[in-house]
Every structure is written in C-alpha cells, then in structure tokens.
C-alpha cells in the first residue's frame, strides 16, 4: 500500500516567498483500487504525484510503501520504482521519438537489469495494454501510431516492471474524446484482472465517476474532501466540492444535492499566499451567503486540520460541515 502522511512540499520563490504547493496531505492507495485525485490546475495535484513517485523531494511528512518509508538514496528509489510506476498525460511527449515501441517498453527492464526473456516480457506488457498482436508493434516508431496507441505503449512501458501501483497524471486529457473510453477501460481491467492499484490525477470529475473507487478533492495544496466516489460526487459536503459538482454540464441526477449552479467568483489563489484559517474561506459561498455565520470565527481563525486516516470513509475539512454533523 502506498501512503502519504502529512506530506508537504514547499518551493522557494524569487523575493523570499515560499509556495506551499502541497500543504499537508494524507492519502492511501491500495492495490486493487483506483483513487482519483481531482482539483483545478495549480492546486498542487501534479506536485503531489511527483512527490509520491520520488521525483520531487518532500519538505515534510512521509511517503511510505508497504509500511516502509521512502528513502531518497538512488538504490532505494530504484527498488521503489519497480512497485510504483508513472503514466504521463501527453503520450507523444512521453515517448522518445527516436526509440521504437520495443525499445520504449524494454527500457524499464534494461534499467533494472532484467535480462531473461526480454522479448517475451515486452510482448506480454504490450498485449496487456491492449496492443495485439504485440510483435506487430515492436518496430514501430511513436509517430506512426495514433494517440490512443501511444498511450497504450506508455502504459505497457510501466506494466513491464510488474508494478503494484500506477500513478497516472491526466492519462486521457490529451486524447480524443472517443479514444478516452478505451484507455479508461484498460485501467479498469488492469485493476480488476491483475489487482493493480492506481492513483489517477485529473481535473475531470466525470473521469472519476467512470473508473474510480475513491476520490480526493484537492484545493490549494490540501485535500478538502475524500471518500467513496458515489458519496463524494452525489452528496458532496464541502462547499468547494458542491460548487464543482454544481457547474458540471448536464448532470440532472445531482439536482437533488445541489439544485442551482454555484459559480464561484475569482480564481485559485497563489500557493504562496494561502489564506489564514480555512483556505477556502475567501471564495466560500456559505461564508458569502451568511450561512456559515455561526462558525465564522473558526473559519477565519482556525485551519481545518489535515484529513487523517480516520475511521469514517467520507472525510470533509469544513467547520460548517462539522457543526452540522455535531448538531
């Protein structure tokens, strides 16, 4: 199991300011489940993914795999990467244009010094990724493939190391709409047949609905709501999630939960200027409408704590929500 506890990543900016890109995140991904991490661009979701992969160093908190904390020595990282693999957004850029499909998929094997039956392993990975017959693709170059096929090659390149968890950063965002379903079905099938776990990073809540078991909503470096997809998306409790869900086009089933579209004013603040108290307060529709007056002093003064690994499956970082539950 891949776990993050109170994970923090800070970047120094020119002018001595500090951007808190990831500001306290607790997240678990187990084999056999797909977790969606959703949020707007700039909310820190890609930084979080890179940190989970060990491509970025955390400035606080821990990443652990199978109960063992991730160390940043090159040997420990190499062993870790056989278990946790990455699928990038843009398959065209993720493949070296000068490498054939075979080389691209075999690269992981060569890096890890796995020499027995290389062609067999490559063929196996390609066919698991849905490129059949695999031999037909061995000598193709990326530019000869379609976008969907390229993304399958990238996925095959990750699968060849037989990882237990995939981290996919917007895996279908650059693909044509009609091709997306195929790639998502592939991820679902890998989960169901092979017990692969996946963290899928996306800005598209519909994608989470299509494939994920659990979803975490990220706002300004922190997860503000997480839980099973059905609960979080059809009965959202955090004001931010409610607003996100309400503006989705063509979702009549949600009218019960959020009758009117809530279009938040303004945009995501800068990660170097995270508001005090609740970070969502300046844009919160509940604060603006006065519905949160009873807990306003908490919203202004107290940061709702990092959502921890608690017993409840559905977690919400909102003072108003807590007051309502308590009432």
């Amino acid at each position, binding site marked *: 199991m891949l776990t993050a506890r109170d994970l923090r990543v800070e970047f120094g900016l020119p002018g001595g300011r500090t951007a808190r890109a990831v500001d306290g995140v607790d997240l678990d991904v187990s084999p056999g489940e797909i977790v969606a991490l959703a949020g707007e661009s700039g909310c820190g979701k890609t930084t979080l993914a890179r940190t989970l992969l060990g491509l970025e160093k955390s400035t606080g908190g821990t990443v652990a795999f199978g109960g063992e904390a991730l160390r940043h020595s090159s040997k420990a990282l190499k062993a870790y990467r056989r278990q946790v693999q990455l699928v990038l957004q843009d398959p065209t850029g993720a493949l070296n244009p000068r490498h054939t499909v075979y080389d691209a998929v075999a690269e992981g094997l060569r890096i890890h010094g796995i020499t027995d039956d290389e062609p067999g392993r490559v063929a196996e990975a390609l066919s698991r990724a849905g490129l059949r017959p695999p031999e037909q693709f061995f000598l193709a170059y990326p530019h000869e493939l379609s976008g969907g096929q390229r993304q399958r090659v990238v996925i095959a390149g990750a699968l060849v190391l037989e990882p237990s968890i995939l981290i996919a950063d917007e895996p279908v965002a650059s693909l044509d709409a009609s091709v997306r379903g195929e790639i998502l079905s592939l991820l679902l099938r890998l989960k169901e047949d092979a017990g692969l776990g996946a963290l899928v990073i996306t800005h598209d809540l519909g994608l989470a609905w299509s494939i994920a078991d659990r979803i975490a909503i990220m706002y300004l470096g922190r997860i503000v709501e997480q839980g099973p997809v059905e609960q979080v998306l059809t009965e959202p409790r955090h004001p931010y999630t409610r607003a996100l869900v309400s503006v*989705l086009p063509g979702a009549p089933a949600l009218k019960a939960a959020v009758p009117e579209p809530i279009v938040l004013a303004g945009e995501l603040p800068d990660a170097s200027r995270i508001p005090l108290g609740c970070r969502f307060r300046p844009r919160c529709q509940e604060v603006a409408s006065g519905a949160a007056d009873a807990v306003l002093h908490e919203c202004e003064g107290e940061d709702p704590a990092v959502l921890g690994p608690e017993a409840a499956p559905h977690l919400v970082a909102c003072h108003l929500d807590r007051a309502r539950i308590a009432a």
Partner: protein
Amino acid sequence: MTLLEFKDLSVTYRGSRGRIPAVRGVDLKVEAGRTLGIAGESGCGKSTLAMAVLRLLPKTAEVTGTILLDGEDLLEMGWGRLRAVRWTGASIVFQGAMHSLNAVQRIGRQVAEPILVHEDVTPAEAGKRAEALLERVGLPPSRARSFPHELSGGQRQRVMIAMALACDPDVVIADEATTALDVMVQAQVLQLISGLVTERGVGLMMISHDLSVLSSVCDTAAVMYAGRIVEQGPAAEVFAEARHPYSAALGAAFPVIGDPASRKRPGGLAGDPPNPAKLPEGCSFRPRCAVAEERCGEAAPQLLEVGAGRLSACFVAQDGESIAV
C-alpha cells in the same frame, strides 16, 4: 433572423500527398440570439469551418459552396469588404489565449486595436471603449494596463472575448474557447458567453469536442465526423438521446455523474478517428460502428430527418431502429 448560413460548403486541402477533404458538404444556419454548437474530434473539420467564415484558411485550401453573412456571400467578397466584415460582421474567439495575445502590449491597447482599425475614433475614445469592454467580460477596467502574462488563463480568455466583441459583431465564433480552462473558470466563461447571446442578440457558433458542454449552452447542436455533419438537432436531445452511433459514443465519453449506467463503465469507441486522406467507402463511420450493416459499405447515408427537428446521417436511425448497442 439568419445571420450566418453555410450552403453545401466544402473545403479541400491540396497537399503533397494529394487532396485532403476537410469539410464535405455542410449546410448550417446561425440565428440571431441563438447558439449553434458544433461537436467533433480533432481532424473532423470543425475548426476549418470556423476559419472559412473569415477566409482565414491557408492558400492550399479550396473552398466551394456559399457562406452567407447577413445575406452577403463571403466567398465572393473583395478584400476591402472582407476586411470591413472581419470583426464588425463576425469575429472569432480562438483557443489558446496565451498565443493569440501579443505578449509585449498592454491588454487595453490590444482590445482597442480593432476599434481603431475599423472605426473613426480617437485613441482616447477607443481606450475608453476597451475599458468598458473589459468590464463587461468581468475584468476590472484597471486591468487594461496589464500585460498578458500578468493574467491567469481564465482572465486571458475573457480578454479574448472582449476583443471579439470590440466592434459589435453580429456573429461570434468560439473555437474551443473554454477547453483549456478548469471546470470552475469554464463555468464562469460559459455563463458570460450565454449572457452575451441573450442580452445582445448575437449569433454564437460554439465549437467544442465536449458534447456535454455544448448540450448545456447551445440551442442546436451539430455533430461532425470526417468533414460531414452526421447528426443535428436540439442540443440537449442530441446529448441525451443520440440518433447516430457516433454522437452516442461521443456523448458517452462524458459520463453523467450520478447516472448509475455510466458508473465504472467508461464509454468510448474502438479504433481511431479516420484519416481524411483515406476515408472508407460508404459511411465514413462504418469501421468503428457497432451497428453497421452491409448497406453502410455501399453508399454514404444522407443527412435526413428522423424526428421533430432531428437530422441523422445513419441508415439504421433513419429506419427508426435503435442505434444503442
């Protein structure tokens, strides 16, 4: 009132590898105060259609048919008239606002530029108008003094819209204007665009690959595949209950949250979008179609009525049968 009308429009690119048809016989109308949505994937010809309106296509493009703007044939216009019509008659909001704005010029000047070009006003007046336009798209007028890099993606897209509106055009074409934006910012921009249509009675032609966005904003939707319109009808109906297997698949790619039917069942199509240089015989969609029959390989289906206000270019749907798989 019909502001913009395409009649049997075809665009063919002459390339080194032969002639590539991008748009093949399209008939469409944009009405005042209404929104027409064009859905389709990359390479289906939807952007070519947008560029054809302002004659922005490269020299290698061969255009046949007619495009009527306020009853005047755009393809017959001389250059002087065309220049006058660009921006005052019809304007485009492009995708990728970062690249369409000049990085070293203040926002206000860029918005004022079309006004100065097309109307006999002083720079001061044009500047005032530019500030008013920025205010109308939800930006503080003080933003006129900013440079593009000082704005966020959503704000830049708003500037693009303000520029498109600068000379009070009758028709606005939005080509994937919200695609690169986040859900919340997209909602803000869509709200803004819809408001302009109802308040000012412009005719809006909105181009997107996202059928779900079109269904929530547009009155009519046309789905394009391989340069042809394969389905047309009221936007919400096309999305909810498609009459062409391609629109059905495209709609399924955007699941309805809360709908148990789409939960953990990502919809989509096998195969890849067609290569316009090598289109199959008969119906272009046949190789990817789940309900294809033998006759689909023999002749290309015409766009025919399949219900009140609904048009479909599918033999199966035209026979009144279900295209659901």
